[in-house]
């Protein structure tokens, strides 16, 4: 599905990357811990998180993450938005909690970056 479909499913607001909603999305990773994202996330995935600081964007950039979804109604800080615009990483915000956000996307066909750890 596209990022635009993700936006509809999550009734999300787009903060950065209105022009990138055609991006194709297949996988996602949910975490509030950036080190876990660095350990397990795969390129071209969605990052679902409750963190809003610029390090979320940095982490996404380092990992080639396609877009960031902030959950529980969290909004990016000004510095976070600035960095995301500069690095061209879309940021969306949804009011759904992390569990609901993940569940709704999974039900619609998005799968996890990995199913469980220890498989490699």
């Amino acid at each position: 599905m596209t990022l635009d479909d993700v936006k509809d499913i999550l009734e999300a607001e787009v903060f950065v990357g209105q022009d990138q909603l055609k991006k194709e999305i297949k996988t996602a990773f949910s975490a509030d811990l950036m080190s876990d994202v660095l350990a397990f996330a795969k390129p071209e995935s969605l990052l679902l998180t409750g963190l809003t600081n610029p390090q979320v964007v940095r982490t996404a950039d380092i990992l080639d993450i396609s877009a960031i979804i902030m959950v529980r109604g969290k909004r990016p800080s000004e510095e976070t938005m600035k960095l995301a615009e500069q690095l061209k990483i879309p940021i969306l915000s949804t009011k759904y909690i992390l569990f609901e956000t993940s569940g709704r996307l999974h039900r619609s066909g998005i799968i996890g970056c990995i199913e469980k750890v220890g498989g490699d």
Partner: protein
Amino acid sequence: MHCDKSFSVEGGNFQAAGNVSSEIKGLLKKIGLPKDTVRRAAIVCYESEINIVSYAKKGQIIVHADDRSVQIEATDEGSGIPDIEQAMKEGYSTATAQVREMGFGAGMGLSNMKRYSDDFFISSEVGVGTYVKMVVFNLDLKLMPDHPQWVDTYT
């Protein structure tokens, strides 16, 4: 294809944490290394940078890249690590609240650095600082018969 560069990292500057790694990633991309090699090198740089910002007064990241590998050396003037074996364990951390707020400090940094590098070396002296050297091989070369020492590393 070649790149040699040194960057200084300011300890305690959480706002800037990651700037150096982004720049290094851009450089490695520019010299034409494959995506996966660039990504792994960027991850180990980023974790090193976060560590310097979190635990040191200042530090330096040196990158040396050619078509065979990316070598990253991170040196800092900081508190040092009393027990490296313990620090390498996933989940062990001495991070401050500020570090945790950024989404780090969960005891994954050093193990991530090891996870993504093909060669990993660390030494540290309490009260002096820490030195980490990581090598990320350009994976396309692993089957090249004229580099047997690298093939050994993989098998």
